[in-house]
């Protein structure tokens, strides 16, 4: 039960401030998004569909989905492991680990891409070794995946840690005394308790993984039909003055964002009590 917050009186200043916030959001979010749709259909529906059916566009969508399909599950596994370690065990350096976990949020995505080029690129530390072994990481799928993983690393863990801290270890300890082994402990006690927060974290992680531009741009090499994800594909088209193509592809990303928003709102509304971000007590 949340205590009812004391309400501010409705003064002209309060009304003015609210109107300002709404106007600002229309100006910087709603209008530009509407413009994406407008530009995409500027020459009608047929050119819109044609540009989406272009092999490069289809390949970009497939690659984006593939990268997310690899990066998100790995981040989910890592997120659960990190949240478990941080909330269930005492060890020195925990604070440091938490700060490092936030690093991908604060660091520029360009750096998150560049570090991999410096490590695995042709002139990077391991460049020669990898080349001899015939393994290509940069300008290929593995590079896109690790860059995406780095950028989206904290989403799941950050969602789970406060919730698991809040829930405490009592239920798990009880399960152990009742004879549960590690496996049943996790799948029958821990996971059911965190499933909605996990879904929420995975959702945010997926949205970010699909929309990521900066880090992916550095490691991609922009090879059309091969290493261009959807955001990179948009840039290429835009730079070539194919505005219908660029905005058509952009509607896909924007659509994805709106679906994410709807799912996120649904989760927050339906499972408020089980999400760390909206604790009820």
């Amino acid at each position: 039960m949340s205590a009812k917050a004391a309400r501010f009186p409705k003064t002209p200043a309060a009304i003015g401030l609210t109107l300002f916030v709404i106007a600002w959001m229309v100006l910087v979010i709603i209008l530009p998004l509407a413009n994406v749709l407008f530009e995409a259909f500027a020459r009608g529906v047929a050119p819109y569909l044609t540009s989406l059916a272009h092999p490069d566009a289809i390949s970009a969508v497939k690659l984006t989905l593939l990268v997310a399909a690899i990066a998100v599950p790995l981040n989910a596994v890592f997120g659960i492991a990190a949240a478990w370690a941080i909330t269930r065990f005492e060890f020195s350096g925990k604070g440091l680990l938490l700060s490092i976990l936030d690093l991908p949020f604060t660091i520029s995505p360009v750096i998150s891409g560049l570090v991999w080029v410096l490590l695995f690129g042709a002139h990077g530390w391991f460049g020669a070794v990898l080349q001899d072994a015939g393994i290509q990481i940069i300008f290929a799928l593995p590079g896109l995946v690790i860059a995406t993983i780095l950028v989206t690393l904290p989403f799941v863990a950050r969602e789970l840690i406060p919730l698991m801290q809040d829930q405490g270890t009592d239920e798990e300890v009880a399960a152990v005394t009742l004879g549960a082994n590690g496996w049943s402990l996790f799948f029958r006690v821990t996971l059911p308790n965190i499933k909605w927060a996990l879904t929420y974290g995975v959702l945010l992680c997926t949205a970010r993984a699909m929309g990521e531009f900066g880090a992916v741009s550095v490691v991609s090499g922009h090879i059309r039909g091969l290493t261009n994800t959807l955001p990179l594909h948009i840039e290429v088209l835009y730079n070539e003055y194919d505005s219908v193509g660029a905005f058509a592809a952009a509607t896909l990303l924007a659509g994805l964002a709106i679906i994410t928003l709807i799912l996120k709102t649904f989760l927050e509304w339906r499972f408020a009590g089980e999400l760390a971000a909206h604790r009820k007590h």
Partner: protein
Amino acid sequence: MSLIVSNITKTFDHFPALTDVSFQAEPGEFLALLGPSGSGKTTLLRLLAGLDQPNTGTVQFDGIDYLALNPRDRRIGMVFQSYALFRHMSVAQNIAFGLTVRPSKERPSKSEIKATVERLLKLIQLEDFGHRYPSQLSGGQRQRVALARALAINPRILLLDEPFGALDALVRKDLRRWLRQIHDETGVTTIFVTHDQEEALDLADRVVVLKSGQIEQIGKPVELYHRPQTEFVFDFLGSSNPAPARVDGDTAHFDGFSVPVISATPLNGQKTTRFRPFDTQLATEGAGFKAKLVSVLPAGPSLRLELKGADGTLYEVHQAHDSNAADLKVRDTVYIRPTKVYAF
């Protein structure tokens, strides 16, 4: 099949949580671990459950070295102050949990599990609540479910960690009586941690009093109450008043009167003895500790009077509602005479 705890020592970062603790729980016994917070009673319970390991010492049950056993193999039913029910499982699923997580070879059949759950639901008088979820239950109901869940694994020992700590006074008392009844029906050796001396004395066959990680006294409630061996036990089990006296064997001599003294060993010399608020007589004149009445608390089974001695000592004295004390007024001068004192 007794539980034998020998010479347990446990330190946390050089802080001694338990020092050389030894006791024994007989089969079917109801044992209370009583002590203030920080006395190490919960640490001791966690060691028994296998959630922590002691630095030195042994724990044996029926000849088995319990410290070598994994917590999930100890078959110890544990009940927590916070209930720790699985929030996403129904009451019936909670109770069945310990049986359903057994490896398939040892797992009872579905119908056996169902029968066990029904039997336990009946025992805790929640027959129609099997399909409910913990969040739909009151605190007292949740704790009963937690107990049923612990009993479902047919535990060798039942451990209860401040089981009634989160409940209000009336429910507490009710559950206390009920717990004792369940224990007498099931006959499970039960160890139960509390900081509430009334709860411990009411419920337990024997009480282990802990202070700062060390055992102060082990005994039946009546022994503890009437023959406390240390000042701590005396003070912890009830209100206590100080009384400096010259002790001479079984008699304590005060200025103008003498009373019997209770002590573990014969004592002689100048001692600060102690007496209970109800082992007293009040008079407006004569021998006794001169004191001024500070306040009268009339609610309760007896009149509770707070008095302040000439030297600043505070006394608590209980008198019958129909005694002369009822006529006293605040700031009246009275003389307090203990009828018996304890010395350590």
